[in-house]
């Protein structure tokens, strides 16, 4: 008994002293933060370790996205409208060489670092050389060879044509100050506790759960944003983030919300919004083209015809996570609209059971009751594989399974171990699997991931960069090479049209949804968010565009 | 004859309730007189320990006292029925008036407390106004009484040998100078030399302090030597009661006789040992009539049907009592 009393006394004592000592508490102003000056951004990424290194994908700055509020890229690119020209940012102008192996950028002269020093071309050249020097920092894998500054111009040289990677060069590299970074002994492991960047915000405080940025006093090269304070909160999981969004605690996030209409939007119909624009990267069912009978494009096309993308979009992805890909070319809209070949313009995918059956019959398949028999009379079965824990994919597979049964293909679903699945997919040991493609500024990345013959490896040898289905199509490979290396627009268009034709004919991967770069947000306190009417940038708070979005925000009601 | 200090009248002790009850002690009448040693002998299962636990109400569940009374006569003051005391009264009665020494001294002492703690807490519980120093002095004195040096007070039970532990228990039993000390096989677990020493000491202490002892054992030969009177239990009943020497010289009950002829004598002529045939009875299925009749060499007609009452034998020796048709004044004579 005595011990319990003692404990209570000790506890009370500890509390008292703690409360007494809270005069200069860092939380003192927490509750009275002005709604009109603070923007609460959330990510469901769990507790963070203090790390503001803008180059490291693992850093808190990257994970929560605030690196782009502190550090800025040379130019802004709008993933929602990938074909639009780049928006000048730290660079006022970028000139690519015809073969896209070098770019000459002009650095604006009114940008300063938050420590007051002027941002110069030297800084930019230093940054690119840094990335070149440390492959660990080169998270875009661009083969830089050299960057030289001259006056306010910097020439960045690459080992190969980078037409398809322009955004990786200009939009994805945060520019860091030379005068500070040259003192960092190992930039790959430095946590950059006091980040100094050219952006409008500086780091105010960091805790494992939240990071607060405050707006600079001045010296920013354009008008300071209306948002005076940015709070990035890392919620422990999706449901915590969802809850925070629902009750308005969080005003901007990128999180998977099942049944988002009920769970999020319905909580405040007027202000709670979700905008999830597609980008040029898709998700779909990769088929192993070396496995009989799926080596037959006719079968693959028939399968494509019965797969109900709409159903998957609404059910599996809860209608928002992976925007529907309508076009038969697999290119999402509106991001890919400008790339669609004339022959496929306006051709949208429709579930066509009869058409599929007819196609199959024509190709020598027989629908025997509920079983599809191939040309040799064998029943067509397929094993669909995806990691067990990826619930959206698993759900998609369930729908696919259901759809395929309509044409008599018996599908089984294998819920794989994640590691095994990665390896098996790369090694070609699968029959069909849901997976994503790379995304980029052009459809090149999508098609490269699906049909690049340069990545063709025998079954059992890993091909991490793509062509998991082992499609061996000379035409596609040549078109891909041509597109990446072309020096004129006509050649590119021709190559792109070829790629689409091959894709539609071969259907090596049945596209279902696009990658999105959207988010959930609230217009209660801030307006000016990008949306369908004004798609000026991506909606995801971790993209470089996030800074552009913040700069667009205005207090609600103003 | 001296005054009675503890009178047991018609005590019945059961294990369990209702029809499932096992009657372990049946209608026992027994009187302990002031300052005497009353020996209670019997085989295992005869109910002798149950009697001791029952009359002090220490029997654990499912034991219940189903009848009878236990009248205690304090030195000054009116007699009380121990069985009808409230828990608080019973607690006050215990140890101050009647203490108990159990068989296993190792198990009787709390292994986690020092001897001193266990000696002192009983004094403090009953004499709350005593001073700590006074209690300590008393504890030392008690240990000396049983021949243990006072520095053993600070030992834990496991640091003492079996004999020492039993001595400590005896010292503890005498702590409040009770009128009655109940001893349940206090020396059975000890070697003979130790047993003799402890019993010697006990006899000496009794001379000095004048308490009465209810001494329970299965070793009749020990009782004959050590006690004033002896009661023999069989099948939950007292079957014979007599002064020790009388009992030894002339056992009336065939069972007592059998017991006396069961242990070999160390001295004197080699006696014939007859023993007792058969096994002790099952308490759940007691024979009808005299419980001993199936083993009795002298059983006759009424034995298997009628329960012999405990009463003075036919020769009407007032100091003796026996429950056997062979000796009953009212009994049909053996045919």
């Amino acid at each position, binding site marked *: 008994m005595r011990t319990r009393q003692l404990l209570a006394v000790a506890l009370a004592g500890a509390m008292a002293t*703690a409360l007494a000592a809270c005069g200069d508490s860092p939380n*003192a102003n927490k509750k009275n933060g002005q709604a009109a000056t603070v923007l609460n951004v959330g990510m469901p990424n769990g507790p963070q370790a203090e790390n503001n290194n803008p180059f490291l994908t693992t850093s808190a700055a990257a994970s929560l996205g605030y690196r782009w509020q502190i550090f800025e890229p040379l130019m802004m690119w709008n993933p929602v409208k990938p074909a639009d020209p780049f928006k000048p940012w730290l660079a006022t102008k970028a000139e690519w060489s015809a073969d896209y192996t070098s770019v000459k950028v002009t650095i604006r002269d009114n940008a300063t670092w938050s420590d007051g020093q002027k941002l110069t071309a030297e800084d930019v050249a230093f940054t690119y050389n840094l990335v070149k020097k440390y492959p660990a920092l080169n998270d875009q894998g661009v083969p830089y060879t050299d960057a030289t500054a001259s006056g306010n111009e910097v020439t960045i040289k690459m080992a190969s044509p980078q037409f398809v990677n322009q955004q990786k060069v200009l939009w994805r590299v945060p520019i860091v100050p030379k005068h500070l970074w040259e003192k960092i002994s190992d930039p790959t492991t430095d946590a950059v506790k006091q980040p100094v960047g050219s952006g409008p915000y500086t780091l105010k405080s960091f805790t494992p759960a939240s990071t607060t940025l405050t707006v600079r006093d001045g010296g920013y090269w354009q008008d300071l944003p209306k948002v005076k304070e940015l709070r990035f909160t890392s*919620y422990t999981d999706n449901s915590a983030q969802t809850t925070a969004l629902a009750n308005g605690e969080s005003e901007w996030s990128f999180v998977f919300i099942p049944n988002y209409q009920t769970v999020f939007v319905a909580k405040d119909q007027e202000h709670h919004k979700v905008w999830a624009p597609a980008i040029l990267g898709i998700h779909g069912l990769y088929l192993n083209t070396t496995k009989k009978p799926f080596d037959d494009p006719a079968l693959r096309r028939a399968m494509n015809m019965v797969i109900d993308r709409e159903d998957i979009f609404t059910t599996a992805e809860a209608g928002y996570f992976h925007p529907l890909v309508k076009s038969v070319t697999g290119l999402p809209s509106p991001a890919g609209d400008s790339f669609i070949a004339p022959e496929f313009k306006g051709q949208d995918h429709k579930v066509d059971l009869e058409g599929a059956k007819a196609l199959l019959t024509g190709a020598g398949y027989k629908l025997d009751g509920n079983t599809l028999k191939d040309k040799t009379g064998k029943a067509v079965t397929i094993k669909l594989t995806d990691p067990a824990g990826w619930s959206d994919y698993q759900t998609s597979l369930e729908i696919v399974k259901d759809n395929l049964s309509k044409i008599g293909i018996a599908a089984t679903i294998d819920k794989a171990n994640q590691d095994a699945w990665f390896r098996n997919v790369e090694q070609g040991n699968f029959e069909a699997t849901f997976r994503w493609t790379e995304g980029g500024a052009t459809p090149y990345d999508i098609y490269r991931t699906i049909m690049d013959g340069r990545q063709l490896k025998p079954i059992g040898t890993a091909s991490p960069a793509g062509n998991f289905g082992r499609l061996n199509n000379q035409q596609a490979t040549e078109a891909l090479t041509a597109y990446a290396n072309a020096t004129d627009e006509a050649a590119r268009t021709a190559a792109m049209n070829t790629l689409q034709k091959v894709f539609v004919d071969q259907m090596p991967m049945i596209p279902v949804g696009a990658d999105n770069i959207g988010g959930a947000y609230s217009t209660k306190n801030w307006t000016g968010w990008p949306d369908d009417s004004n798609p000026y940038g991506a909606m995801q708070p971790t993209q470089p565009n996030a800074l552009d979005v913040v700069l667009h925000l205005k207090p609600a009601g103003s | 004859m001296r005054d009675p200090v503890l009178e047991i009248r018609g005590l019945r002790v059961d294990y369990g309730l209702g029809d499932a009850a096992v009657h372990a002690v049946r209608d026992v009448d027994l009187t302990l007189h002031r300052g005497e040693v009353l020996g209670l002998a019997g085989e295992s299962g005869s109910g002798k320990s149950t009697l001791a636990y029952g009359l002090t109400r220490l029997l654990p569940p499912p034991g219940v006292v189903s009848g009878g009374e236990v009248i205690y006569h304090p030195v000054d003051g009116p007699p009380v029925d121990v069985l009808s005391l409230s828990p608080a009264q019973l607690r006050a009665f215990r140890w101050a008036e009647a203490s108990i020494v159990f068989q296993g001294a190792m198990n009787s002492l709390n292994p986690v407390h020092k001897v001193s703690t266990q000696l002192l807490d009983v004094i403090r519980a009953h004499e709350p106004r005593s001073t700590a120093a006074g209690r300590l002095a008393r504890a030392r004195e008690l240990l000396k009484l049983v021949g243990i040096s006072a520095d053993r007070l600070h030992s834990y039970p496991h640091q003492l040998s079996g004999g020492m532990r039993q001595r400590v228990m005896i010292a503890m039993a005498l702590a409040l100078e009770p009128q009655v000390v109940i001893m349940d096989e206090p020396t059975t677990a000890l070697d003979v030399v130790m047993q003799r020493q402890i019993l010697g000491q006990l006899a000496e202490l009794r001379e000095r302090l004048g308490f009465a002892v209810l001494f329970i054992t299965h070793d009749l030969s020990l009782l004959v030597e050590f006690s004033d009177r002896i009661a023999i239990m069989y099948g939950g009943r007292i079957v014979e009661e007599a002064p020790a020497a009388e009992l030894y010289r002339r056992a009336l009950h065939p069972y007592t006789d059998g017991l006396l002829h069961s242990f070999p004598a160390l001295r004197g002529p080699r006696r014939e040992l007859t023993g007792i045939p058969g096994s002790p009875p099952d308490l759940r299925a007691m024979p009808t009539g005299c419980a001993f009749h199936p083993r009795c060499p002298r059983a006759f007609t009424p034995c298997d049907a009628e329960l012999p009452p405990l009463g003075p034998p036919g020769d009407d020796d007032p100091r003796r009592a026996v429950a056997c048709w062979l000796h009953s004044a009212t009994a049909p004579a053996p045919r």
Partner: protein
Amino acid sequence: MRFLLQRVAFYLFTAWAAITLNFFIPRLVPGDPVQSLISRNQGRISADAIESLRVLFGLDENENVWEQYLDYWRQLIHGDLGLSFTFFPAPVSTVIGDSLPWTVGLVGITTIISFLLGTALGVGAGWRRGSWVDGLLPATTFLSSIPYFWLGLVAIALFAGPGSFFPSSGGYEPGLVPAFDQYFIPSAIQHSILPAATILVSSMSGWILSMRNMMVTVSSEDYITVAHAKGLSERRVALSYAARNALLPNVSGFALSLGFIVGGTLLVEIVFSYPGLGYQLFQAVGAKDYPLMQGIFLIITISVLVANLLADVAYLLLDPRTRKS
């Protein structure tokens, strides 16, 4: 003291065994943290990043196992648990340092409260058979048969959620800076009530039951009868005689079952997304963050060992029989 030395020697041995085990587990089947990182960011990290991440994590080093083992020890001795993959380049020790106080605060304190409370109730149940505490046993059995995590889920469903006093996740209100002040402490307490209650409810019945059984067993010991015969007060017999002795096996039971309890309570952190070790372990497992996994396992093991050692010391203090030289 000999007893204690023996125990210390044993715990050192166990620690060595655990550390060695810890070293070998991830090396037996090397998974790929890079892929894991990519998969967690489905599509948001390009395949081109793979190379840079590999370089970053230093996964290409090839040393023989024995050298690795020695290195591992060398690092350990310097308190270096390596760098976490998920939070690269944050040292594992930093990550653990951030989450350890939460676990100790929640799981540690609750486990001890659960043990004390359960033991106290068990004393009551065992001493007064058939009383209301005894009557609780079937209910507590049922509660203890419920997996921790499920109980947590139900607790969240019933008590937490928007508008409720109880938050459903996290260790404190996001936006607060951990500090001992009037904003943070109440928030932390508020966040810990539900998980703590969950742990209490599901772990306590074990203690109640074992203590009750020990009390029942001890109650029929002779020294209890003697204590009654001595006319001691009920309270003194129950506490100083019965409970005091019944506690001994329970203390060693407490030590031994710590390993199980800690495992179980970590789940509570997972369910409540409580920023402690269990949650981090869960994250690390998902991210194939071997250095972090190893580090957490090591810390858990060592704290269980230390708790065991403390329990041994307690036992030593409680049971004079072990004290003899």
